């Protein structure tokens, strides 16, 4: 059983390493992740929101919906732990 798991892991690792051939080099400023929308955020964030920390500005203002749903997720985790662990004492 464990050797089968090891074989599956090695095959998946080899496929993933073969897939990194297409990736851009580390530290490339022209990588596709950094050319579509994030220059707009970096250049316009301070003059539109007066907040120098660009990560907080994007998290709170430009992507405010994601932060709201994340707060709902952590609230649901608290409720789930309560509903799993609180039981009436069965006498």
């Amino acid at each position, binding site marked *: *059983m*464990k050797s089968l*798991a*090891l074989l*599956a*892991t*090695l095959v*998946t*690792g080899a496929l*993933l*390493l073969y897939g*990194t*051939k297409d*990736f851009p*080099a*580390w*530290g*490339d*400023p022209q*990588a596709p*992740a*950094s050319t579509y*929308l*994030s*220059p707009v*955020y*970096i*250049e316009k964030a*301070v*003059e539109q929101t*007066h907040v*120098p*920390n*660009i*990560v907080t500005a*994007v*998290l709170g203002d430009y*992507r405010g919906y*994601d*932060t709201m749903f*994340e707060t709902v*997720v*952590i609230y*649901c*985790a608290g409720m*789930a*732990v309560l509903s*799993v*662990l609180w039981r009436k004492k069965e006498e």
Partner: protein
Amino acid sequence: METIIGEIVAKYNYWIYVVLMMIGFYAMIGKRNLVKKLIGMNIFQTSIILFFVSTGVKKGGGIPIVDKYQALAGHVEAASTVNPLPHVLMLTAIVVGVSVTGVALAVLQRIYKEYGTLEEDEILEKLQR
């Protein structure tokens, strides 16, 4: 051979994260104890988060916190700061990971109270009886 060495040197961060991902993956499917599977899931998640953050690094760039008065007077170069968008998305991913770990530990406590053991094959045996 030289192109392979050149490629490994240029992209060695992706290779490190794939190795970490496979360690977590083996722990999730190869171990029998349920807590060890949970720890494997955490390792997997950590490697994914590190991988995403490392795709936004720019050579010679600083952290995405700029000087306020200099930015209001002049303008900010897009190549002088690291891409802030993966950082934002991975903050959400970290919090989701903490939530999933919390709920999984609560479910493991109920399983232990019900069956008395946390080994996967003993639980399956008790289920089939």
